[in-house]
């Protein structure tokens, strides 16, 4: 079978600094692959290369069997890539409903129509209604995104990403800044979504990582120093020394 995401020998240099140093990893269908590492390990740089915001110096990225190394971001989305941002990135002046609506519309197409009425496209708003149903955001549906709490923003961003029906979801620190209860909700949401898409999860919250991840890769100074199941990583002495040892201390 082909991997949903396959990265091989990826290199990115900024001046003298090697932010990504021959990184190779894969994400398979239905899998949650976690990427951990201390601050400055190059996790965000890697995510941004997968998304296409940064073009690597060397190496290859394949998405669902297609080479996407140099494709612009939007084309990768068309191949089934979705993402959330480390600092939530929403359409601040629009309501929760409109944010979701735009995400569905972006997927559904017809985006160059200038004589239709977006507000009357039933296929969009029905789906948005269904998505919102039963979520904590439901009562907040007509509030501007800028006025949501931090946790709600994270939640909305996830819903928007899922509305694109991606094959692979890149999650850039979805737990960051969340309280304990909100983190639990987020873990539940992610767990519920895993049947729909594979995920590459960048996260500092080890509890969440160990709760969710099928496999874990550890990134330090731009290199993958270890990869394996949760248990293998826990047992890996190099990881303990380079990363967990410091973090847990």
């Amino acid at each position, binding site marked *: 079978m082909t991997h949903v995401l396959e990265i091989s020998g990826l290199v990115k240099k900024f001046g003298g600094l090697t932010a990504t140093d021959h990184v190779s990893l894969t994400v398979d269908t239905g899998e949650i692959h976690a990427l951990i590492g201390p601050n400055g390990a190059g996790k965000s740089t890697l995510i941004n290369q997968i998304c296409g915001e940064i073009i690597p110096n060397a190496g290859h990225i394949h998405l669902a069997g297609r080479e996407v190394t140099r494709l612009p971001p939007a084309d990768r989305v068309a191949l089934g890539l979705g*993402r959330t*941002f480390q600092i939530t990135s929403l359409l601040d002046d*629009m309501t929760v409903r409109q944010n979701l609506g735009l995400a569905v519309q*972006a997927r559904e197409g017809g*985006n160059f129509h200038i004589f239709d009425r*977006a507000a009357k496209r039933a296929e969009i708003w029905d789906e948005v209604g269904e998505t919102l149903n039963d979520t904590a955001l439901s009562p907040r549906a007509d509030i501007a995104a800028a006025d949501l709490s931090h946790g709600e923003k994270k939640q909305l961003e996830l819903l928007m*990403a899922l509305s694109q029906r991606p094959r692979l979801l890149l999650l850039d620190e979805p737990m960051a800044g969340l309280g304990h209860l909100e983190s639990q909700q987020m873990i539940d949401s992610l767990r519920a979504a895993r049947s729909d898409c594979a995920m590459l999860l960048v996260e500092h919250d080890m509890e969440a990582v160990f709760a969710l991840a099928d496999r874990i890769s550890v990134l330090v100074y731009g290199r993958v120093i270890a990869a394996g199941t949760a248990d293998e990583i826990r047992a890996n002495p190099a990881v303990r020394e380079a990363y967990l040892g410091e973090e847990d201390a």
Partner: protein
Amino acid sequence: MKRENIILLVVFVLLALVPFAAEFTGQSSWTKLVGQALIYGMAAASLNFILGYGGMISFGHAAFFGVGGYVVGIMYHHFDAGTAFLGFIPGTDQMLITLPAAVLVAGLAAAVVGALSLRTGGVQFIMITLAFAQMFFFLFISLKTYGGEDGIMVRRTNALPGLDMKDKATLYWVVLGFAAAYYLFLRRLVQSSFGQIIAGIRQNERRMAAMGISTYRYKLYAFILSGMGAGLSGALMVNFLRFASPDMMHWSKSGELMVMVILGGVGTLAGPFIGAGALFTLESMLARYTEHWMLPVGILLLIVVMTSKGGLMALIRKLTGGAK
């Protein structure tokens, strides 16, 4: 009927009555004044679509206004002289041909300028659009055949079947009709699927890209649509004044259009029309009383921008208690 539509209808009827009112009160020049303000309003509204709704601050919009105007001027010139443009396109004085041609040519110009300019952003975008507009300005100023800096006279307003375009009131109503249609078009445009995408790009381009939107293509499309609108208004202006000149694309004209948008209210449908009307009336009223009208206009503009955010539309909303 919704309240907004009622207001629109009332405003439209009032505007339609302007020629009568002007005649009745002996202030017949109001017809021309309001007509010009409406055309400028259209040009400003077309700019507002990319500037207010799309977040693209173009400082070269007058280029498309001028290009549209020159299409009418050049076609009339060849019609009058019985020659052909580039040797094979005959001239004409039929509005049903000149206006679509103006819209098309302005759209083409916008496509070229936009395709290059949209590779930049921010202040650089402001300046590069200005640069392209300056190139158009210098091009037309050195076109000897079409009058150079003196411009082209269009001795007769373009003909529209069944109408006496020599009649000032008729011409005014034609302009009003176009302005109203353009307003409704813009209203539909900003509510359309495309309008939503453009609004999204203004608020958060990175997010839109992450949702699979190639923002460049959408912005370019918006830029072209906006340029076409400017071309239409330029073509109408030349018909209205029966004159086209490079002044139409001077950078200060781009600045004026921008001032109209900001004064009226960025990102609102009626704002640019209100801004154009206010600026135009203010200038021409003050000019009657003093040769130094620029001073009070400057001071008033400064007061507006210092004391209110969102221009005259915000003020109107405040006064009418937040109603739309």
